[in-house]
């Protein structure tokens, strides 16, 4: 009898592990413990001002990570998000009206997403190789458009990022809108369901799911989210910067993996990605408040990525 109960329990655990949403509750637990520890050790952590700062600091990573998650769900990786961010800030800093530069950013994102998607789905290039190549191309164009940081960002962008709407701090609105959009895409649409199905096995096509089209759309959506992150960052720094996106490819993959999304595809959740992003941002913010060197911060982020990836066997991920 007891063996039967134990068996049921194990089955329950296995079932939870294999659930589509992944292990998002573990990072949530870590985040809660970390948050309480930070509030106890860093006097200024839990203040309203710092929490608003945290929202502004987390917003660009959250945007990129939601996009990255869409690609990871279909067993891909997008390393070009960083260069899309840099190129977005570069385009926005061109001396041209906002009616030109803002649409140009999204046209660029669409083009990058299409190239990535076509390379992966039509030419069967490994996602890492495809997006790394596109990274080089986008970075080269960025250096042509804005070789050094500078320029002026359209006032509408800086207002949208730094201003307030009905007394609400704009970065908070960005965070909420990003989460709602991500939720709709991932958990509230047929597209999201298809991504889980495609990532879950090789049989999606047999159920009438157009894998190629959905994978291509995932790359396009990922680039679009990266472009939005670039727009947010351009508003924050009030200029274009050819190198500002450098860290975001690794950081977004870390946030997604940290949130329980399996790099092997098919398993993950938006709540996990949000938690992963908040954890990383809280780590940077908290360590600043605790006066920890930025080099130690970088090393700790690397260790976290290593720990998270180590849980996901290389053979399963297919890297």
């Amino acid at each position, binding site marked *: 009898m007891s063996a039967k109960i134990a068996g049921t329990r194990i089955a329950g655990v296995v079932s939870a592990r294999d659930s589509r949403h992944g292990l998002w509750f573990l990072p949530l637990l870590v985040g809660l413990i970390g948050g309480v520890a930070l509030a106890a050790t860093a006097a200024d952590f839990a203040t309203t001002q710092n929490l608003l700062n945290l929202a502004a600091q987390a917003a660009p990573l959250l945007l990129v990570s939601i996009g990255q998650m869409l690609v990871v769900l279909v067993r891909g990786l997008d390393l070009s998000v960083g260069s899309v961010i840099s190129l977005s800030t570069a385009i926005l800093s061109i001396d041209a009206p906002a009616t030109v530069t803002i649409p140009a950013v999204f046209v660029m994102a669409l083009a990058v997403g299409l190239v990535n998607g076509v390379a992966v789905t039509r030419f069967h290039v490994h996602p890492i190789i495809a997006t790394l190549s596109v990274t080089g191309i986008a970075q080269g164009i960025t250096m042509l458009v804005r070789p050094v*940081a500078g320029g002026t960002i359209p006032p509408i962008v800086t207002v949208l990022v730094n201003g307030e709407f009905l007394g609400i701090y704009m970065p908070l609105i960005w965070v909420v809108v990003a989460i709602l959009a991500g939720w709709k895409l991932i958990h509230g649409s047929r597209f999201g369901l298809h991504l889980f199905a495609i990532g879950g096995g090789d049989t999606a096509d047999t159920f009438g799911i157009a894998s190629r089209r959905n994978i291509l759309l995932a790359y396009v959506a990922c680039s679009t989210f990266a472009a939005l992150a670039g727009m947010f960052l351009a508003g924050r720094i009030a200029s274009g910067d050819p190198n500002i996106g*450098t860290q975001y490819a690794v950081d977004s993959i870390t946030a997604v993996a940290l949130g329980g999304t399996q790099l092997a595809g098919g398993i993950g959740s938006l709540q996990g990605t949000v938690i992963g992003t908040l954890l990383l941002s809280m780590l940077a*913010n908290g360590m600043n408040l605790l006066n920890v060197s930025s080099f130690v911060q970088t090393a700790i982020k690397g260790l976290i990525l290593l720990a998270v990836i180590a849980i996901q066997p290389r053979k399963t991920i297919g890297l």
Partner: protein
Amino acid sequence: MRGALKKFGVGLLFATTMLVGAASAQDVQLMNGVVPRPGDDRKTELDQFKKDGPWKIGMSHFGVNANTWTVQMAHEAEAAAKLDPRIGQFILLDANISQAKQVADIEDLIAQKVDAIIVTPLTPTSADAGIEKAVAAGIPVIVHTGLTGTDKYTVDIQGGGEHFGKVMGDFLVKKLGGKGNIWVLRGLPAHPEDINRYKGLQEALKGTDIKIVAEDAGKWQYDTGKQVCETFYLNNPEVDGIWSSGADMTRACMDVFQQYGAKIPPITGEGNNGFFGKWIETGIDSIAPEYGPEQGAAGVRAAEALLEGKQLYKRYVYEPDGWDIEMAKKHYRPDLSANVWFPTSLSEADLQKYYGKN
């Protein structure tokens, strides 16, 4: 008569107040060679930022490990803060050459309710929003080693990058008799200091027949500078002079010429121990414009003065004359590594700790 006396008394009081005010601002010696910007008499108010200790001072550094100079500038700031027992906490945040991180760092310093913030901006816009927020929150902000787009800061100490570049440019113009081909080794792309130094060079070259035949960013680093210089040399070793925006790159370029057994052309340097050693050893034609990492300490001294309630000018400049080889001999320290920069206010113990060869 009484009215006249009253007017005289009021006038005397006003004049005295003005004189005392001016004297207070002038009394504060931030660093040798740092003087109020000519033509700009704006000052902080007496006691405007006065606070009792212990003080919490924050610093947002654009990139501590960008090169050996930036490392020492951070050491100078920390050492100056340690000297003053009224500074209870000195928080140094490193933006690690990231504009986004610098914005976040300044926000985090404001959230920690520091009593003063020292900012060395990465680019002319990377710190603007943070500076304006801090000043709006009543926190005095001292800016040095970099430009800002805003003028909302409390005190600004500008090292005169344009002056620095012009001193070097003028030296080459003089050495080359106003005619010839030069190479240009630039610093960190987009850094305001690099932009300004280059402007100074262009100013010096105006109306001359000196041509820039090769130009690239050595990022103020020995390794990158050496790669750039080696590429230039292998492409065409014929050059009449070299304008180097920083001494680590100068040393690297001198090493390239020595490696190929070639004569080193006139080359500009900087107040760096490694460069001084090579300069003295080779006796080459050079000049070392002054741009001391002691500015890190000057920023802390400005913060201390403001929190003591002293009056400071809003803007200071740091544009001393260039150093010749005699000055280099006077400062050269063979017992210290090549990574020490001058002028410095580090104690002998700190110099030995960070740079001692033994």
